[in-house]
């Protein structure tokens, strides 16, 4: 049991390091999901099943989904567009 805990703690440290060192945000999303999965297994081994369930829902599913949505919004939004969404509807009338 002690060896499993030590191995899982070292895996957590390694995956956290991977999240930091992967500089490309689209690849970092996968590292974040893997980090959440390893944290889930660690919490199960630390006798915290409810925390593991919450981490599985939040850290493995919800937070990477948020990152993917933010990345898609950044990639689709062109910086030459205006800041206000109201301008988006007005500009065809002016032009």
């Amino acid at each position, binding site marked *: 049991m002690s060896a499993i805990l030590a191995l899982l703690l070292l895996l957590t440290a390694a995956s*956290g390091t991977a999240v930091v060192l992967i500089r490309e945000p689209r690849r970092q999303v996968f590292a974040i999901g893997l980090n959440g999965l390893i944290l889930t297994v660690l919490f199960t081994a630390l006798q915290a099943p409810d925390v593991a369930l919450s981490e599985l829902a939040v850290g493995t599913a919800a937070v990477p989904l948020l990152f993917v949505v933010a990345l898609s919004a950044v990639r689709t939004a062109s910086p030459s567009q205006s800041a206000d969404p109201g301008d988006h509807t007005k500009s065809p009338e002016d032009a």
Partner: protein
Amino acid sequence: MSWLPYAVAAWLFGIGLFGISTSRNYIHLIGCLSVCQSATYVLLLGIGYRWDAIAPIFYDHPPGTPAVDPVMQALVLTDIVVGATLTALLLVLTLQVYKRRGTLDPERLRPMRKNAGGGRVGARQEPGTEAQL
């Protein structure tokens, strides 16, 4: 073994701070902040852990069986929810920064620099003002 959770928590916090201070992309920076938060999960659960103890669920165990500390687990549960909320809030703020300034690099967002972000100084004007003038 008993010092290993604290060492892992300190390492995660340190590497998260390193990532935050050297990041050149706000979305990457938010991921590094979540690494810092995972350091607090490991620290709190390491404090509350007891050897040869059960999970604090006494449905099929008699009362008085040694269990790990449920208060720390409640704190970690709160921490996870707060962390997810903080990540969502910071991502929305990052999107607003990108819409206004057109960049995600913190080095290009110095507040006192003129024409920052590709010369979009007039982005806060009233829409359609220049076309009418």
